């Protein structure tokens, strides 16, 4: 019985979310509001656990250094006061400092040098590799901002944009079919968790 009720409630939520595709309605708003409350609760609880594991436990075990991130986290709330709001800048800048360092370190190799390397290596693997090479060189020229896209650069940009658009189309298609699967999955949920159990099938 609990399962049928669960399936019923789950089905109601599915329909409430989907109903926004038809038109705005009270049912959709109720579902949205409920999920918002549930998600904040889940997120808050997981973060409580995270603070407990990553800060409180180490502090109790004598690692007092972990008081610093707790204080930094609390400084975020200074934003609520107009006089003290600048204090929130400290934790924010600590986070951005870490982020910037990690970003630069990871990007140089993975997204630039390795990509160049692969493009060169591809170019010697045959016709397809040469097309990839042309694609990279021409599409990259689209991102030149200090010259007008005319003349030879203009031609290169035109070719490059075709490559970029095919790439966008391919990405679109990968996601479209994935989302289609998700929709089918939800229909299967409605059938398997609610309709079939209800009919006793």
């Amino acid at each position, binding site marked *: 019985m609990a399962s049928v009720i669960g399936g019923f409630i789950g089905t109601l939520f599915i329909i409430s979310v989907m109903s926004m595709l038809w038109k705005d309605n009270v049912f959709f708003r109720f579902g949205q509001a409920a999920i918002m409350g549930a998600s904040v609760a889940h997120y808050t609880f997981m973060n409580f656990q995270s603070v407990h594991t990553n800060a409180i436990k180490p502090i109790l075990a004598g690692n007092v250094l972990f008081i610093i991130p707790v204080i930094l986290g609390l400084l975020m709330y200074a934003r609520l006061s107009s006089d003290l709001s600048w204090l929130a800048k400290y934790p924010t800048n600590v986070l951005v400092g870490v982020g910037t360092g990690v970003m630069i370190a990871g990007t140089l190799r993975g997204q630039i040098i390795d990509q160049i*390397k692969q493009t060169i*290596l591809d170019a010697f693997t045959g016709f397809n590799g040469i097309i990839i090479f042309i694609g990279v060189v021409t599409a990259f020229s689209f991102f030149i901002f200090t010259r007008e896209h005319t003349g030879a650069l203009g031609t290169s940009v035109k070719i490059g944009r075709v490559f970029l658009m095919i790439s966008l189309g391919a*990405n679109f298609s990968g996601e479209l079919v994935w989302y289609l699967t998700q929709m089918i999955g939800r229909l299967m949920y409605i059938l398997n968790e609610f309709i079939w159990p209800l009919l006793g099938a």
Partner: protein
Amino acid sequence: MIKTGTYLDIVLMIVMVAASYYYYDKTKDPNWKPFIRHIPALDAISEGVGKSVEEDKPVHFAMGASGGQLYSTLVSMTLTALAFLRYITALCAEYGARLIVHMPYQTESIPIIEGTAREGFAFAGKPEMYRRDDMRYYGRGALTWTQGVTMSYAEEGVGLNLSIGIFYSDCPISLEMAHIMGGMNVGGTGRWIMVYAFAMMCDYVFLGEEIYAAAAQVSEDPAMLSGILIEEVGKFFVYILLIVGTLLAAVGLDVGALLSL
């Protein structure tokens, strides 16, 4: 002392830092103005704010459900989105349009987003236009964010919807719903895998890296403008590596090993 496998990274880093030094120095000259090609989507932003005022609907600004990443490899995109937030607050102040900011779920980014919006209005001489209740937060994940944003479009109407930042599988809903509700979509993301959604759903789109260049243009901040030239130095370096690497490979050198240094 230096880790193996990072030599070439360091070379590229040095090139970029040297270019930064050179161009930051140039910005000391108040008459220095670099040429930057026109990005069409930029004009659409003020057009959209005008449209919002005409229709008496608010301007919406979204940075993505997960657009408040401060300590991941996408932090640059968060900062770029904030440059646009600053710009759109100035425009809204100028035109007298109401601005609704849909904040991402990362709570740690709330102070910097709120601060940027508040200061944007203050800087434009209209601090009273800042409203905390128009800084919206919807809980964790794409799920509640997309629903919250859609709800806001339906309830409050949408004139311009400016969506710039880190977008995952949230923009296919938010952009399309804004379109269906009669809004004008302008936006872009640096995450290539999601750019298709912007290209298909926006009236005006910034393709990939264009968001960075556009942010520099709207900021009118010399340091940001010089950033475009610094990037161009990087691009030159990339082309050099591509050409030299291909030539060396053609004469039989092991370029794979060279580029793994």
